[in-house]
């Protein structure tokens, strides 16, 4: 028997193989809700041999036809088990190789129809589709089913309407309307066509003469309306009314479909708009990053030049007056300790308490370097070490409060209300814990606080003994503790005290050997620091009363009043607008800020004007008018000048053209500002420090652990900022 079975099986294999190939997905059937049909019973009975169900009937049947059943079924079940996949619900019949699939085989093999990729695609997709979630239909889906919409929108929906229209067509003799219409449009009319071209549709309301017997008769019969010519009948009319109602419903369906589509499209548009806004913000951020990289590049170039110039001088002894590249114009990132990166941005992480009165001026050499801060009614600015946060010492010499400070590396220049400008070497502060004057000047070194008190009490004793300083300086330096001798030491008369101004020096700026100061005597003076002499004096009053031709137009009334006031009244005093805490002062600084580069000098003064001077000639060649109150702070770079004033605005001017580029409005008077290509940081009479992002035009405030009273002064380098406020505290921020 084995040969016969093999013969049988080889024959059947031919059928099996293509069939098995044609059904790649042999899946278990899902449960059927109806009970097993008669056919299924027979099927199960015959095949149950391989489903491990023990029935007597099945055994008998399988014994009856073992030859046929065994090889084919074995092959088929083997193939089926290879490809069987089961789905979630428990399948009731495991083998799909039943008579149904066998029945399908001849159809498939017949070649009348080939399996296309479309077929396969459909079948394969079934799996994943069945797995997807089916939510409850809501909204439109539950109101208008697909079929309803189908019936409402297919072309045959229009059929009833056209049918009704045709019902209304009245049989009339041909009027030749088409010819009329065509000639009215200017088209050539062709030969008469027969009536099959379609009947003309006329309105029922028209009353038309219908000539029955041609034109010859001419007699007019009674006019009959067209609607009387035809009777439609009650059935027809009711049918028409039903159709019309259905058509109206169809219109309702179509309307709701369109509404749904419109709302979906609106949602999509809103989503796309949101995406576009985000992308535009990303663009702005990219722009900001680009500006930062530009600055960094400049910084790197400067450093390259600096280091290259340093190399030949390495062996040489450092000069006491080695004035470094000014930090105010430096653009690139600063050197910071690695821990600085861990600081959260926008937080004041250090507070220096030491002053007892509101801060009037501050500056520092570099982040985590040396800070010099001055406050009201205190003639001795304090020197701090920013790395440790400890006070190193004080600068003694001024007799009145210090109004402006600039620190470059170890050199410090202060301008005081007493009209003098002093040059300090900050390195000497370390030595004996006291501020000192420069080499020639002399100063004393003493660490004991008790002595300080004595000296302060002794007042102006050693007022103007120049010679003593020279002689006794070294003696004192050696730590000779002698109160009397110390008392005779005064810095007022040192060579490196720069005297000249008659009133308080309120603004100064120095770079390399050149210093420019502005004072309340309404003049600007230029000094040479190597000799200590005043090189030039620029009179602002003269510039006010001899205005140059300015491109920005006429003097506004407020400025005229200011200039008049400035010129006539001896002392200049303007009440400031109230700060955030309600307090206000009399503002008396005529020169709010100065800065120069090369021979171009820019000053902001009490008449609200920003003036550009040529230091070679001493003339103001341009006046920028716009502020309506005194200018309190000023800075410029290659492209812009930023000035803040008591009129609560910051104006950004174009350096070359002289026009206002931007005006930022605040709630209180602006007392200090600093800017770079990407941001403007300003102290505007509030406890928080205002930061304006120039690329995204967003304002923000630095408040965390901030001042408890309005901020007066600030200065930042890269991501490190120092601010001083009326609460007498100096706070250090990470930006």
């Amino acid at each position, binding site marked *: 028997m084995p040969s016969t079975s093999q013969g049988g099986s080889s024959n059947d294999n031919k059928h099996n193989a293509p069939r098995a190939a044609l059904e790649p997905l042999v899946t278990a059937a899902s449960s059927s809700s109806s009970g097993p*049909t008669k*056919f299924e019973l027979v099927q199960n009975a015959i095949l149950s041999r391989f489903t491990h169900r023990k029935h007597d009937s099945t055994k008998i049947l399988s014994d009856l036809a073992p030859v*046929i059943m065994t090889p084919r079924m074995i092959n088929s079940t083997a193939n089926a088990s290879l490809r069987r996949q089961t789905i979630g619900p428990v399948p009731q019949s495991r083998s799909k190789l039943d008579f149904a699939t066998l*029945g399908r085989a001849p159809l498939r093999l017949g070649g009348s129809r080939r399996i296309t990729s479309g077929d396969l695609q459909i079948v394969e997709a079934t799996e994943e589709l069945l797995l*997807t979630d089916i939510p409850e*239909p*809501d909204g439109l*889906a539950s109101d208008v089913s697909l*079929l309803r919409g189908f019936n409402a929108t297919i072309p045959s929906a229009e059929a009833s309407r056209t049918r009704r229209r045709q019902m209304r067509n009245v049989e009339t003799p041909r009027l030749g309307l088409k010819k009329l219409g065509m000639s009215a449009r200017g088209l050539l009319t062709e030969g008469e066509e027969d009536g099959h071209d379609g009947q003309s549709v006329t309105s029922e309301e028209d009353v038309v003469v219908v000539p029955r017997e041609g034109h010859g008769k001419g007699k007019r019969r009674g006019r009959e309306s067209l609607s009387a010519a035809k009777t439609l009948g009650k059935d027809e009319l009711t049918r028409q009314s039903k159709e019309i109602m259905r058509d109206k419903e169809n219109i309702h369906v179509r309307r709701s479909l369109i509404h749904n589509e419109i709302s979906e499209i609106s949602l999509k548009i809103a989503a796309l708009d949101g995406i576009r806004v985000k992308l535009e913000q990303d663009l702005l951020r990219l722009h900001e990053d680009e500006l930062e990289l530009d600055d960094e590049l400049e910084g790197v170039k400067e450093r390259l030049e600096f280091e290259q110039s340093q190399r030949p001088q390495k062996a040489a002894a450092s000069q006491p007056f080695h004035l470094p590249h000014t930090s105010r114009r430096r653009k690139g990132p600063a050197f910071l300790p690695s821990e600085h990166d861990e600081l959260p941005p926008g937080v004041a992480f250090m507070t220096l308490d030491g002053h007892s009165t509101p801060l009037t001026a501050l500056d520092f050499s570099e982040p985590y370097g040396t800070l010099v801060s001055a406050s009201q009614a205190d003639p001795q600015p304090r020197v701090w070490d920013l790395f440790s946060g400890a006070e190193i010492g004080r600068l003694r010499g001024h007799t009145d409060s210090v109004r402006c400070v600039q620190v470059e590396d170890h050199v410090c220049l202060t301008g005081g209300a007493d009209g003098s400008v002093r040059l300090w070497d900050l390195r000497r502060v370390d030595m004996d814990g006291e501020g000192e004057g420069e080499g020639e000047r002399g100063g004393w070194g003493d660490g004991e606080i008790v002595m300080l008190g004595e000296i302060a009490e002794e007042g102006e004793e050693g007022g103007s003994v120049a010679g003593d300083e020279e002689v006794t300086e070294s003696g004192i330096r050696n730590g000779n503790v002698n109160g009397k001798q110390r008392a005779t030491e005064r810095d007022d008369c040192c060579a490196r005290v720069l005297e000249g101004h008659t009133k308080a020096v309120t603004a100064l700026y120095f770079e390399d050997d050149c210093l420019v100061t502005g004072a309340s005597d309404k003049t600007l003076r230029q000094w040479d620091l190597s000799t200590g002499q005043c090189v030039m004096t620029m009179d602002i009053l003269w510039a006010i009363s001899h205005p140059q031709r300015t491109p920005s137009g006429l003097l506004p009334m407020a400025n005229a009043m200011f200039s008049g006031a400035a010129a006539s009244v001896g002392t200049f005093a303007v009440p400031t607008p109230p700060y955030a805490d309600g307090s206000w002062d009399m503002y008396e600084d005529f020169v709010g800020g100065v800065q120069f580069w090369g021979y171009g000098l820019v000053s902001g003064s009490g008449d609200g004007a920003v003036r550009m001077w040529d230091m070679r000639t001493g003339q103001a060649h341009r006046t920028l008018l716009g502020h309506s109150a005194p200018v309190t702070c000023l800075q410029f770079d290659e492209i812009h000048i930023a000035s803040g004033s008591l009129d609560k605005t910051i104006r950004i001017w174009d350096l070359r053209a002289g026009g206002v580029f931007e005006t930022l409005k605040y709630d209180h008077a602006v007392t200090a500002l600093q800017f770079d290509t990407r941001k403007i940081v300003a102290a505007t009479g509030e406890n928080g420090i205002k930061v304006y992002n120039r690329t995204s035009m967003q304002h923000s405030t630095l408040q965390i652990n901030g001042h408890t009273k309005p901020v007066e002064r600030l200065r930042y380098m890269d991501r490190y900022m120092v601010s001083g406020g009326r609460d007498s505290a100096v706070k250090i921020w990470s930006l």
Partner: protein
Amino acid sequence: MASDLPYAADAEVSLSYDELEVLRLQYQKELAQDYVTVQTKFNYAWGLVKAPIREHQVEGVRLLQELYRAEPTRRRECLYYLALGHYKMGNFEEAKKFNALLMEKEPSNMQAMSLAQLIDRGVAREGYIGMALVGGAAAIGTLLVAGLIRRATRK
């Protein structure tokens, strides 16, 4: 829920060629605009499914499947239409699966129940054909076997 589903007999009635053409043009016009509304797609798909040509039915089912994927709210209806499409094409397994899923969601749906019966009847019909095939093949097989045995015994 108001389920407005057509009976299976409706699927046997096909649209006229012109109507199908109009639907096809509408669908392709919207396709060119890159925004096909659900109703247009369904109209075209349903018209295709009703057509007698098998390629059209395949295309119709494919479009219905796309609808199923894209519109969650319409899925329940699409289950029925997919089952109907598969039934018409002769893919009884898939038809049964979709219909079963629909019956799970809506046990009292008249059209779904009638479709289930139709599917079962179709399966049975094919099974009878299969049984006849089996019998015929068995007959041929025994004949061949007998011939081989005779040849063997003769030798």
